[in-house]
């Protein structure tokens, strides 16, 4: 009876222990595995909005992916293609317009703080002209998906054969802030390569080599 009490106590204790520790255990990564890495970026750029809602194709900004090993972070000149005109959310602009009509005046220009960072970086003045007095300050983003230096991953080859970006980067179009959802370990690469060689990719048969020399040289 006494012993039973102790046994039960222990069981409960273990149960609780597991409950408490579980998140820690589940979140455990071996060194080098950056799964779930999600750094705060200098500009709160939303892939959900651009790639998801507005469905801008990935390649539009990351044009490097087609012709280079690196997909590349788009230069601000690319952003400016749209943001030369789009300065704030539609809602904000509409609100300003209505307010202006009420107050019988020309609507003021609304610039969202995040987009403003672009203009500042490029040293543009109110009228979107280069203001020589302002310095040019390139923005340094934080790389989310990192591979070791001895791995040579070539975007070009994957994009040109029709691998969709999500396969490695996850559903970026749903992310406010980009997060690494896959562990991008060697096992992940190799299994995918094997699978594709076996079952083909979007219907066509592809030979995805698993030679070491494909990535390590």
């Amino acid at each position, binding site marked *: 009876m006494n012993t039973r009490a102790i046994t039960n106590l222990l069981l409960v204790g273990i149960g609780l222990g597991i409950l408490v520790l579980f998140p820690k255990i589940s979140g455990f990564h071996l060194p080098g595995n950056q799964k779930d890495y999600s750094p705060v970026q200098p500009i709160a750029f939303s892939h959900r909005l651009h790639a998801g809602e507005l469905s801008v194709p990935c390649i539009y900004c990351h044009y*490097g992916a087609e012709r280079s090993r690196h997909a590349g972070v788009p230069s601000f000149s690319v952003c400016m293609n749209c943001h030369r005109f789009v300065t704030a959310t539609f809602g904000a602009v509409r609100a300003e317009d209505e307010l202006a009509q009420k107050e019988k005046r020309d609507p003021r220009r609304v610039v969202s703080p995040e987009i403003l960072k672009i203009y500042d970086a490029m040293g543009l003045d109110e009228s979107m002209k280069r203001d020589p007095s302002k310095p*040019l300050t390139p923005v340094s983003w934080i790389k989310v998906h990192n591979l070791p230096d*001895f791995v040579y991953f070539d975007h070009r080859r994957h994009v040109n054969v029709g691998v969709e970006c999500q396969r490695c980067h996850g559903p970026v179009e749903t992310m406010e802030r980009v997060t690494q959802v896959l562990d991008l370990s060697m096992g992940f690469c190799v299994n995918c390569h094997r699978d594709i060689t076996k079952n083909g990719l979007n219907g066509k048969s592809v030979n995805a080599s698993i030679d070491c020399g494909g990535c390590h*040289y």
Partner: protein
Amino acid sequence: MPGNDRKSLEERDGDPDFLRGPEDEFPEVPATEGGRTGFSRRSFLKAAGFATAGALMGCKPAPLKKAIPYLIPAEEITPGRAYWYASMCGACPAGCGILIKNRDGRPIKLEGNPAHPLARGGLCVVGQAAVLGLYDSQRLKAPVSGGKESSWPAVDEAIRGRLKKIRASRGKVRFLTGTITSPTARRMISSFMASFADGKQVVYDALSASAILDAHEASHGARVLPRYLFDRADCIVSFDADFLGTWISPVEYTAGYTAKRALPALSHHTQIESRLSLTGSNADKRIRVGPSDIGLVLAHLARRLAEDAGSPLSFRTLPPLPIDTGALNEMIERLLSNRGKSLVVSGLNDVDAQRLVNLVNHILGNYGTTLDVKRPSYQKQGNDRDLYALLDDMESGEVAGIFLHGVNPVYDLPDGTRFAAAMKKVGLVVGFAERSDETASLAHHICPEHHFLESWSDAEPVAGILTITQPAIRPLGGTRSLMESISAWMGTPKADYDLLREAWRSSVFTRQTLERSYQAFWDKTVHDGYAMVGATPVGTHPFSSSVMKGVPGPRPAEWTLVLYAKIGLLDGRHAHNPWLQELPDPISKITWDNYVNVSPATAARFGISDGDVLRIAAGSVAVELPAHVQPGQHDAVASIALGYGRKGTDRFANVGPQWLEGRPTVPEGGLVGKNAAPFRGFDGRSIQDWKPGVTVTRTGRRYDLASAQTYHSLSVPERMRGANPEPRPIVQEATLDAFLKNPAAGATRGEDPASLWPEDHKYTGARWGMAIDLSACTGCGACVVACQAENNVPVVGKDEVRRRREMHWIRIDRYYAERGNGDVGVVFQPVMCHQCGNAPCETVCPVLATVHSSEGLNQQVYNRCVGTRYCANNCPYKVRRFNWFDYPHEDKLQNMVLNPDVTIRSRGIMEKCTFCVQRIQEAKAEARRQGRTLMDGDVQPACMQSCPAKAIAFGNANDPESTVSKRKRDPRWYRVLAELNVDPSVGYLRVIRNREEG
């Protein structure tokens, strides 16, 4: 293919938005002189380079990786892609066309421009290594005045002021340069000099060909260097001219030479020399005579030919022929039977000898066929007599101002000290040297010039063939090009780019007819890297065999000292380049030193052995250097390489690892090698590179030489011959006659035994293979440095080489074969990883760090290697290289040259030739991107690309039409150690020499 991405910087100049962008994008980068937009994109490339370098260079992974995009990108730049710019190699005046590989804003590799009419795609060791020189942090970054760093305005002010005075006093001004092939620069110098009462340009070459020009002045009335067309010569007789190694334009000559050695036709090459040169080692017949007798043999040849021609020479009686008459007769026979298709050259810098050479070529009717004096070469323009005249003027204090460009007389003249003293008598001394060298350090002002990869320039190495040198990076320091400096001092400062454009519009564009618009012509030239234009023939009068007096050369003494140029260091201008210092000499295989070569017989006679320090003395001059016993050298000759003992080479003291028993690469307070220039002499007409009557004494001390090969024969040591008296069938040889009778002559063994195993690993796709034509390979070593540049092969330092730990992925084995009476046969064999089909290394690695690819590559996975070295032990070719220590760059700035496509290997890791797998992958990716299949030639490993002789072929052995497959069907094809059934993917084509048996 490089070609695809080739852009001229010019093309990008068109885009206004682009011009604006970068100008002010990186304000911290000082604006370029004169606000030239033409340069802005270089600041751009450079910045881009810095931005991505950290992530790409394969150093330790940073905890937080940043990505800094352009604000406004150059429309052509995509990070991670390489771009190629056509330009010209400025490492020597030969003027080979190159393609500069630019990656993320940094030039990281130079390759021969296949379209270029001179080099035809080849590039020599020096050219390959030149890119490292760009990142030499010891190059001057700003002008220097009176030994202190200064600024351009200040220096210009001072110099202009000084020049004003000189003009007023109508003083003598001299512009002493090395050979300058740039017509624009030459024009500017002459107009600059013309602005003085008595101004004159004086040209001299440290490795002088002055006598050749003088001789032609006498014989043809024009002081020109003929263009030698080896690709038209069926019979070549060379009197001590190392034209495959260091003489005038080796890459051009090698290309031509090998073009005439395509079997079954084979030119015949006789070399008469006193020391074993690279050229001599490739000759079909090599005649070993003392330096003084070379001229004598030449004289006999000339006399006999002249008699045949019916215009006997008015020689006083000649001393007897120093070689057996049979050899001479044979030579004459050959020459006469090849009238107009033969070529006689001489490297002797002796006017009489060169006159005889001209006479011989004239009699043989070679002028106009194998020698071109109408469209001559400008690769050597030196005039030794002018130089000495200048020296006298300086000593007499007549010279008021002197400019020194591309020369280092204090170092490389026979009497540099005399020159140094004379410089003190000159009121204004201005140097343009890239560093404060022996001469420049004595100048009042040093106006450092750009590296040739940083500036605009042009060149006309051969009449009618022009090249544009275009910059591939913004100048790393505040240097200034020669043309800009001159224009600044003439009061009309202009950008070299503009100067060039103007000059070309007026003087080059007009010489061509193909292009209508100047812009189109310019763009085409910049893109192609060269332009063929008309050249007004040099006015020459018909050959005059006037005054053929005397026999060149004094009588032989017991010891004659011969000075020669080494393939890597030449006249010493590249002594600061660690790649060249560590390149094994093609013949001696020794690195990091110069030494005294003595023949084995002589060594035996005086009891000299390798490493004994000898004291060589002639009059007041003496030098102490270690001995090296060199087979094939004349017994009365001691030879020493020039170009060593350069100021500042003590920097290499901390190259390589420092540890308990490690020894420094450079002895405490010493330099790399010793300077032998003081032994040179001036005979009143030309600089002599040999000195009779020197004394050689043993000091009793010893000095370790670092050699990359310590056993030199294919036969095992004498007392173990019981094992097998025959030489090992590693390099197979046959004579032309034997080959013509039986194409398989020289084969020692049938092909590999059939395997008992089923063919269960078929190569369904490509199977990469390599075929090396040993008949074509001259052993120059260009592939070695090319590979080093492409694959981030580290420099390990002298002590490590001495311990047989050099890292080169491709080595050139050199074997001697005794031919009796001191003559020696030489064969070269490039050896890299043979990528075996049944690789012994693969089975033994416990962690699968080296495994086979589906395309027959033997892959080495650095990051998996734990370093048991079992694979290296089990490699029959011994081509695997182990990182015994960490081998960082001695000069951190030189990390900029690292190829981002190849992993940097850390300590404790095995590495080896990969067949340039990064290039294979790149080619595949591009092919897929362009939706085409890989074609033969799409993939060119660095070694193959740079080979001036086109000896190496690489490709898919599964494709019956590929060059490799064709060579595999060649009867000369064999594979080394195939009997081990390791199934190597590398094969060789047997050496065929045009010589008689034995």
